[in-house]
């Protein structure tokens, strides 16, 4: 770099005439003072503020309503309080309680399709299923997070997972009126299963987004490990719906399927669709009077 911070023109330097006075080279500081400051780099302009910088991050989270408000509108507030470490167990407990409460309500909607024993069996199994899924996936989430460079402790990881589940189940409550209406007017188990599955996938998508936001603040270097975990979580939750069957269809004498009837969830779906297809013509004749 030349002294004046300006590049010389290309080609050979022109010869100086003898009458031309020798001018001193301008110091770089002249340009620094006279040229306007460059605009900030886009990355710097949009850089995320660190946790706690925004006063909204520090607002205490009180009660179930505080948790709902925080996970929905201020996810950074949840992350900030998890990061602070004080009273973390209360916050994690609240997040999980909200998630389990919401999923129990949604479970009742699922059970309303068949009614009878399913009014209590479906919410019970779905709530227990979510708790078990979270419990068995938590250790691997911690491992994947740490392997990806996150400095989160187990409590913070549990809180992030609790927050993701609280958000996902809150969204399920939003879907509940639609699910209820379809439950009351549909006779196809396969259709209802697919509808609930679609709602669960949408809700999980938003939950995963919350989780990634939380882990970005916990120092995650790469998201690839977290993405692998998301696949594991989805597989476990889908298999859980088969392991705890029937959730949508009528109650089948026992709470869980017999030990000899273990199935992979894809096989169960195929069986359900085939069974549904056999009933479809009779049902179609009654329902297709759409004038």
């Amino acid at each position, binding site marked *: 770099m030349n002294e004046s911070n300006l590049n010389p023109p290309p080609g050979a330097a022109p010869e100086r005439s003898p009458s031309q006075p020798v001018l001193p080279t301008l110091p770089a500081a002249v340009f620094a003072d006279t040229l306007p400051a460059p605009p900030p780099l886009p990355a710097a302009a949009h850089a995320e503020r660190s946790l706690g910088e925004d006063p909204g991050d520090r607002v205490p989270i009180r009660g179930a309503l505080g948790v709902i408000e925080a996970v*929905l*509108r201020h996810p950074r507030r949840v992350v900030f309080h998890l990061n602070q470490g004080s009273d973390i167990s209360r916050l994690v407990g609240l997040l999980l309680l909200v998630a389990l409460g919401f999923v129990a309500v949604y479970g009742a909607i699922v059970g309303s399709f068949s009614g009878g024993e399913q009014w209590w069996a479906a919410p019970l199994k779905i709530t227990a299923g979510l708790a078990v899924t979270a419990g068995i996936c938590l250790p691997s989430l911690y491992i994947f997070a740490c392997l990806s460079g996150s400095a989160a402790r187990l409590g913070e990881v549990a809180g992030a997972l609790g927050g993701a589940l609280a*958000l996902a189940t*809150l*969204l399920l*409550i*939003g*879907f509940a*009126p*639609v699910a209820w*209406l*379809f439950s*009351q*007017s*549909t*006779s*196809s188990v396969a*259709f209802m299963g697919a509808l609930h599955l679609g709602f669960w996938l949408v809700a999980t998508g*938003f939950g995963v987004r919350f989780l990634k936001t939380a882990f970005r603040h916990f120092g995650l270097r790469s998201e690839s490990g977290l993405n692998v975990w998301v696949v594991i979580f989805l597989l476990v939750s889908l298999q859980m719906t088969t392991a705890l069957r029937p959730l949508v269809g009528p109650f089948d004498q026992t709470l869980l399927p017999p030990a000899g009837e273990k199935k992979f969830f894809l096989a169960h779906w195929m069986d359900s669709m085939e069974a549904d*297809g056999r009933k*479809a*013509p009779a*049902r*179609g004749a*009654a*329902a*297709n*009077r*759409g*004038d």
Partner: protein
Amino acid sequence: MISTQTDPVTFSLGPLLRGEAEVIAGWITRWTAGHTLRQVALIATGAGAFGAAMGSWRAPEQAAFAAVKLPLILLATAAGNALLNGLLAPLLGLNLRLREAFAAVLMSFALAAAILGAFSPLMAFLVWNLPPLTPGAAENVTAYSVMLLTLVAVIAFAGVTANVRLLQLLHRLAGGARGTAARLLLAWLAVNLLLGSQLSWILRPFIGSPGLPVEFLRAEAWHGNFFESLLNTLRQLWPEF
């Protein structure tokens, strides 16, 4: 654009039709029970008039039923999805309150209902000029096709206009972020279509088949759903499906 003659608080149809986003955003932020009542009245009148015109082809009772059912679908969709729409807004980047999201959706439905209401005299005129519905009559097929095409065209026009206005409003509320507004509009459209289509299925018939009795709800109203019916039709067309 700000309407100079418009009271920024009192709800009126003009700014809604003109899509004066700033005025509408003002209503949404200062929403009152009075606003809700006016919108409900607008939906009841507009969609009710259109439903009556549509149903009058079959019988006067059918006109009365459709006049009740069409506004009911719009209102039940807005109410049933109020929580979900309210949750989707902050999740998709627009920090609207539950009430504000409900107001925005209700307003777009009210706009659609107003347009339908404006077309209802034309619809009534069309019905007056169509041959009466008689079971097995050959001219019914042509008349039914004309009626269906007109219905689709009018409802599509009302729906597209209402959604364009809703997009403009969301764009304004999102501070110019087009991506956020479009994302939220698509999400709202998807969930409202899902609920609305099923409500329409349950509350059928609106015109009424000439071979079937005039009823408020069919006896099998709660059996099956729109998508299941579509699937059954596909199964009948391709048995191996």
